[in-house]
């Protein structure tokens, strides 16, 4: 780790104390920490040496790195990344071949037990030759580097849950980091890709408090994955009113109604897209007119059609309505009355199913 603190680096760049406090206030807001914590963040960032980070990329598409490096500078992401010591990242570093591997080995030796390991991509456990770096299999490299890490951040759905490489029939025997490493604190930051600010906020939290933030049952940071997309979606009021788009170009779609019937996975997906948004805060998939795919959830590739609604009535409501109309006329009951009764039954039979349930059916 470099002896220089983040505070030193900011001052060298001529950033005033006010600028630094602005930076800390934004970081606290991102981490969903109460504003009363701002002084603590300021103190820690001012006095902590630059954190050594080793980044390993395995079976991945580089989308996670793209997500991070394409964020607009100098945002919080930029500032944090300027002020950590990224000692190894084989896509971003200038060194190549044996020089690059030497840099990794040196950083591991110098900061043993203290460095933060970031992993993107899943790890093939079938033939080790499916993915190697400098002739070392992904599995061997993960085990070697994880041994000396203070904590591990599994960035992206591939590293967190196996992701696309693990999708059936999983030809490479892909596994997630937590499937293979069990003796280190691991934080999952899933998403395909994850929101850049989530990645950097996790790093900021680690630097500030020396430990990982509060996690959910899938080891995801609660500050970002504590609520589902549906609960934070600006289209949620249309769901409550029963106003849905039925096709991508009908009146409902044009009016911005709820995309639930078009297969939106918002209700079962925990992520911060609806509040943090994408592309420098421009929008998020639902705001652009497409349902959520559920990319931050395990097995999202094998969860059935992206366009099938999550919850479907067990009987076809429209057919029931038609039969009701005929039956109503035949037995002399009012159609409205029967419709209401059948509707109540349909509502009763309306069961909520999860992605796992859909898979079983």
């Amino acid at each position, binding site marked *: 780790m470099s002896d220089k603190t983040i505070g030193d680096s900011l001052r060298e760049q001529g950033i005033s104390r*006010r600028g630094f406090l602005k930076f800390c206030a934004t970081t606290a807001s991102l981490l969903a920490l109460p504003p009363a914590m701002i002084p603590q963040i300021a103190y820690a960032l001012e006095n902590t040496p630059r954190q050594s980070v080793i980044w390993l990329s395995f079976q991945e598409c580089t989308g996670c790195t793209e997500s991070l490096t394409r964020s607009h500078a100098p945002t919080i992401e930029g500032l944090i990344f300027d002020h950590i010591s990224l000692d190894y990242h084989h896509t971003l570093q200038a060194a190549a071949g044996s020089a690059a591997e030497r840099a990794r080995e040196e950083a591991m030796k110098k900061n043993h037990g203290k460095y933060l390991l970031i992993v993107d991509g899943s790890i093939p456990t079938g033939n080790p030759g499916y993915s190697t770096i400098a002739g070392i299999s992904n599995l061997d490299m993960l085990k070697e580097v994880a041994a000396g890490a203070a904590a591990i951040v599994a960035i992206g759905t591939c590293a967190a849950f196996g992701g696309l490489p693990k999708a059936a029939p999983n030809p490479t025997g892909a596994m997630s980091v937590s499937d293979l490493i069990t003796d280190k604190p691991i934080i999952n930051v899933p998403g395909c890709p994850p929101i850049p600010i989530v990645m950097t906020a996790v790093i900021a939290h680690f630097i500030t408090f020396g430990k990982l933030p509060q996690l959910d049952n899938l080891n995801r940071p609660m500050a970002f994955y504590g609520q589902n997309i549906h609960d934070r979606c600006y289209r*949620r*009021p249309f769901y409550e009113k029963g106003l849905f788009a039925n096709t991508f170009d009908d009146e409902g779609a044009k009016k911005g109604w709820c995309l639930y019937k078009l297969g939106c996975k918002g209700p079962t997906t925990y992520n911060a897209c609806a509040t943090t948004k994408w592309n420098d805060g421009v929008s998020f998939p639902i705001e652009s007119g497409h349902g959520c795919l559920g990319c931050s959830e395990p097995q999202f590739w094998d969860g059935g059609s992206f366009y099938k609604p999550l919850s479907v009535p067990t009987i076809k409501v429209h057919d029931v309505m038609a039969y009701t109309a005929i039956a109503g006329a035949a037995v002399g009951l009012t159609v409205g009355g029967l419709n209401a009764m059948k509707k109540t039954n349909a509502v009763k039979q309306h069961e909520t199913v999860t992605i796992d349930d859909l898979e079983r059916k």
Partner: protein
Amino acid sequence: MHINQILNHSNAPIAPLLNEICHALEKLLLYHENTLIDLHSLPFSPHDITQLVEFLGKGEVEAYLYALGKSIFWETNFAGVWWIEHYNSEESLINRTIEIAYCPSILQAQTEDIQLGKQQLQQLIKSFQ
């Protein structure tokens, strides 16, 4: 716009927010304690924000800070209630807060900057002698 009109046409938690501001003003008067409310984490649509800004209005003071991008501060029609927007150097909004204070804490000169300024001034005076 009248508050009832805003509350009737909005899905956002505007009423609880106004109550929180009211409690924070009480705290400021009694204990001289500032409160910062982070609007980023509340589910407000851009339309809700516009309505809230309209309702709170603009009071007598407006200030700008140029540090890591621009920040805008204005006192609302309710004295002691400040609307604060922080932008990055690409003019994208990165944080929006309401601070209940006599003066927003970040606007005051900071001790570290004063110390640095004093040193620089002393050096300048020395160079004249």
